[in-house]
């Protein structure tokens, strides 16, 4: 197989998933609305004091973004598993590694990317100091891609189970922790007026690691689930 067809397989899967999402636009909006609603619950729960909100804003936005990614990842392979597309993907001559990478990329473009783009609005609502806004967006941009890749492993492992949802969060949330720690650290460094490029680089390193290794785990899990 030459390079062209490898790329073609990747882009065809990407285009297909984006097209499917475009046809069911409400599914795409749900995690974003969840993100917005849960973030707006916090001022009601902990009180509207701007000072306290500003202190907690990086953590709140990050934790809620993480939960939104988690909720969204449950659907990643669900419909393809139900209608048998996943089996066809395993049978197709294009490597499964590239196909699951394309699916995860499409998934990130529909959840992580809009979440990151929406985060300045949430930062405004939660009184995050203005010097932290760019850092929040950048950290979410890189971090959510790692979250999508890790979430895809869990989604692939649990897709054949009837009650996969709760189990998915149980097995995936512990793996999200390093991303959360460094994501929040980036924003807090920026708010404190420190250089945050080093922390951002750590997130980038996690992304590089996840990007190269997690498709292996996702592909293996997809095969296990289809065999089940």
């Amino acid at each position, binding site marked *: 197989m030459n390079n062209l067809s490898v790329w073609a397989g990747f882009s065809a899967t990407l285009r297909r998933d984006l097209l499917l999402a475009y046809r069911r636009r409400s599914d795409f909006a749900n995690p974003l609305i969840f993100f917005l609603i849960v973030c707006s619950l916090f001022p009601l729960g902990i009180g509207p004091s701007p000072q306290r909100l500003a202190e907690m804003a990086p953590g709140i936005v990050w934790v809620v973004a993480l939960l939104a990614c988690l909720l969204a990842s449950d659907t990643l392979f669900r419909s393809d598993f139900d209608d048998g597309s996943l089996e066809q993907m395993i049978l197709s001559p294009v490597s499964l590694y590239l196909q699951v990478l394309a699916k995860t990329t499409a998934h990130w473009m529909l959840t992580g990317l809009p979440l990151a783009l929406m985060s300045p609005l949430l930062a405004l609502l939660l009184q995050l100091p203005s010097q932290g806004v760019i850092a929040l967006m950048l950290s979410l941009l890189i971090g959510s891609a790692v979250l999508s890749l890790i979430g895809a492993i869990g989604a692939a*492992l*649990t897709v054949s189970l009837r009650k996969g949802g709760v189990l998915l969060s149980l097995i995936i949330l512990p793996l999200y922790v390093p991303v959360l720690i460094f994501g929040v650290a980036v924003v807090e460094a920026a708010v404190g007026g420190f250089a945050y490029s080093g922390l951002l680089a750590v997130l980038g390193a996690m992304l590089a*690691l996840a990007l190269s290794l997690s498709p292996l785990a996702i592909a293996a899990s997809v095969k296990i*689930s289809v065999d*089940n």
Partner: protein
Amino acid sequence: MGFFVLMWAFFHKLGSPRWFYEISGKWLPWLSLLALSCLILGAVWGLAFAPPDFKQGNSYRIIFIHVPAAAVSMACYMVMAFAAAIHLIWKMKLADVVMRSCAPIGAALTLIALFTGSIWGKPTWGTWWVWDARITSVLILFFLYLGVLALYEAFENAESASKASAVLSLVGCVNVPIIYWSVEWWYSLHQPATIKLTEESTIHPDMLYPLLVMLCGFYAFFVVALLLFSRSEILYRERKTKWVKALAAA
């Protein structure tokens, strides 16, 4: 060359649950003896004869449980991940049994480490719990064990269950080096490691030796527990074979 043939034969035999059951039955009394004597010796030495700490008085003595439990809980994860890799690559039945047996033992050990740590934290730090990097990482390790167990139980098909949780434990493997280095990375309340292989330890020899004995005891105990769990798992899985039926009838 002869060595490789011997190793291959050993590896080949390991694939047979029955052979493992028989050989482990012979090891078990000796290992139990080792574990028991190390644990009794270390506990009496550490609790009664080791000198009290200059700053912490007698409360530090929980170190003789806390440190070995924490160390073995991490080693247990490595054993589990290693068994998972062997199971995925060579489809060895025994590796799956070992992996399945590691999860509950590891979960119990992390729980012991967290529990003793919080008992130790109250008199020395003045609080039951701090969100220190190392404590948090051990907590995550505990959650990883629970995740592997939950995933294992969720599948009805045994083959898929073992493969899926093998993948999960390999993925979770990323966490173990983070735990190991976390004290160096995010230094806070928890003290850094005091036992070092390459340079002189910063713990006094009078405390170090009982601690090492306890460490040996915990490792031996882990092996004993692993063998017991594996043996009962083997009996359950092979319950329809002739040799298990003969064993049950005898």
